[in-house]
């Protein structure tokens, strides 16, 4: 997918499903505004992907157990 292509997630079925799954009683007018915002959001989300990104690149924060007391 090139940066000019619409992200796959920018889809009415996906949007409606996410709204329904949220359990929030959004009005029809608000849903219309949110649908436009969703397109922008998915465009931004697409930008965070990087083809060929190393598997070693982890998300922040990376949790690890605290060292034992006294160590």
């Amino acid at each position, binding site marked *: 997918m090139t940066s000019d292509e619409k992200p796959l997630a920018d889809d009415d079925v996906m949007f409606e499903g996410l709204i329904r799954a949220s359990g929030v009683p959004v009005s029809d007018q608000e849903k219309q*505004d949110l649908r436009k915002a969703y397109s922008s959001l*998915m465009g931004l*989300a697409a*930008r*965070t992907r*990087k083809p060929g990104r190393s598997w070693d690149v982890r*998300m*922040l924060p990376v949790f690890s157990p605290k060292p034992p007391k006294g160590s």
Partner: protein
Amino acid sequence: MNVDRDVPTIAEAARQIKAGMLSPVALVESCLARIEAHEPTIQAFHTIFTDEARAAANQAEKEIESGNYRGPLHGIPIGLKDVFYLKGYKTTSNSRIMQDFEAEEDAAVVTRLRDAGAIFMGQLNTYEFTFGGRPTFDALYPPARNPWDITRSTGGSSSGSGAAVAAGFCLGALGSDAGGSIRTPSAFCGVAGMKATFGRVSAFGDLPLSFSFDCVGPMTWTSEDSALMLQALAGHDERDPGSVETPVPDYVTPLNGGVRGLKVGMIRHFYTSDFEAPPEIVKSIDGVGNTLRDLGATVEEINVSPLIDWHAVGRVILPAEAFTIHEENLQNRWEDFGPLARNRMMLGSLVRAVDYIQAQRRRTELLEEIEIALSEYDVIITTAMLTPQPPLDDKAPFPFLDVPMIAVPFNLTLHPVQTVRAGFFNDGMPIGAQIVGRNWDEATVLKVAHSFEKEAGLLKRFPDLS
């Protein structure tokens, strides 16, 4: 707007109070008089502690006169953003959802300021649940107005804090920052503000917006004053899981150390090509670099990933976390939220787990860019604003999706940032710059900021409240 006024800085007032030349009672009364005269217009506070402030000022005066001087914040009027637990009062975050919430104890930063002898002037307005973008008119309280032009936005979400310090209602204020909420109102209102390293100042008792980004910090007229407040605020607190146990250095003594020999990196492409900011902003921010060069710093232009990349990461992570925090109330009390805030939070429900994780992975890469830059440069400078202060009544629901948010990069990377007044638009509105430092090195950031402010001489202009 070049009006003189009789409001000291914290540093000036502290010297006079310690020397017995200024009474905390007189100082508080002068702030209360300004509040009485101008607060109905500015709307920085929703609750003013008139009686409490007078009582605290009397107490402070007695303590100081008896030799029990606690330090530079003793007897200093401070405002509190309405997101901090404050025992005996409601903490509402400007939302009907919280209008009856009263914490059982003070926030950590409130306790630290109280212990330092600060005098609380009141609770300051914020955007509903601190979700920024534009002020919220449909929340519990009306929005604060910019003292430089009451038809323009203060920026947010520490909107009341920026307005109160700019108007001289208090000498300092507390703010919080997850996406620029200290730095944007600082820039828009022409004051100084510090987002410290994530984990430097306890967020215990700060109503959260984003677990990954939330920071608490001071907003003041000068960077010297920011240093004085940060000295009291900083330090480990085991009640805040993000708080880090690392020594707190002296922020005040090194302020006058100068910048000779320091290396400064300017990220200009953020405001010249990634987004074409107005010429006044370009000139002002470039002017910060030029001033530091004149003071003996080495100043060079540096490049990092385009601003839209940083913006994208922030816009995926923050709403997702905000929605998570408020999910139950959004499902069950939708009508009690203001429409602007609730729809901003709804964006978070549209972020899938894979989007969130990819954004966090991109964040790791971007953080590394700034770490590499700061391994070579002592500080980085860029703008704190990309556009002029918008009209107060701009009710665009999602303005932060289409225009990049310039403060967000350093929420992602966790580094300390000081906002300073860098110049003015042709219409007299202030322009702010960001000075970014290495993690835990707020001292160098504040030293650079203080050096710039002293040399540039831009802080002798005040908003005309008449």
